[in-house]
């Protein structure tokens, strides 16, 4: 009985850790542009939004130019 409970707890913890790791990984792979203004405010534009989809190719141009690729 105790062994069964331990196994269930192990599977539960493993699932939670896996889900958190997957979420973090997908968040890091997602591209975005953060804009900071003089008054201290910030706007974050996520990949998929109209503005971000205009800005992200330009950011890739900067990366390519810097790395000579």
């Amino acid at each position, binding site marked *: 009985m105790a062994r069964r409970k331990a196994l269930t707890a192990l599977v539960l913890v493993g699932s939670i850790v896996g889900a958190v790791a997957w979420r973090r990984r997908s968040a890091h792979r997602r591209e975005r542009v953060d804009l900071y203004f003089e008054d201290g405010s910030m706007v974050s534009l996520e990949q998929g939004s109209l503005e971000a989809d205009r800005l992200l190719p330009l950011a890739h141009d*900067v990366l390519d130019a810097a790395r000579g690729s």
Partner: protein
Amino acid sequence: MEAAQALADLTEISSQIESAILVDAQGAVVASTLGDPARAEAMARAARELLGAAERAMGGAESRERLVQLQSATPDGCVFVVRDEERVVAAVTVPQPTVGLVFYDLKTCLRHVAGEELAPKPKARAGSKKAASENGQA
């Protein structure tokens, strides 16, 4: 401080910054950590376009607040652009850098180039060896 020296200090201080350029208000490259001037010019042009497009996306000149810095995060690396009244500094970093530190280092670089004294040098205490040497005593 000389612009090239400020950029050299920047890349020495921050291991996350791969390369950086400094551009003046007219868009000319003032200094660069890239060896190739053509690449520096291409990076400057792309950074200016990114900054301009970001301003336009936020409503251009009519927008309430002035855009002063931006960061673009991609899986391949990040692009940072920071500007003051006269200059723009743009940098490329490794993926997932410490964003606050990179912005701090870039702003410090701009202030160095502008000639601001960031912190007054502490004066040597009276009686110390340094104070004696500063006063020309043996």
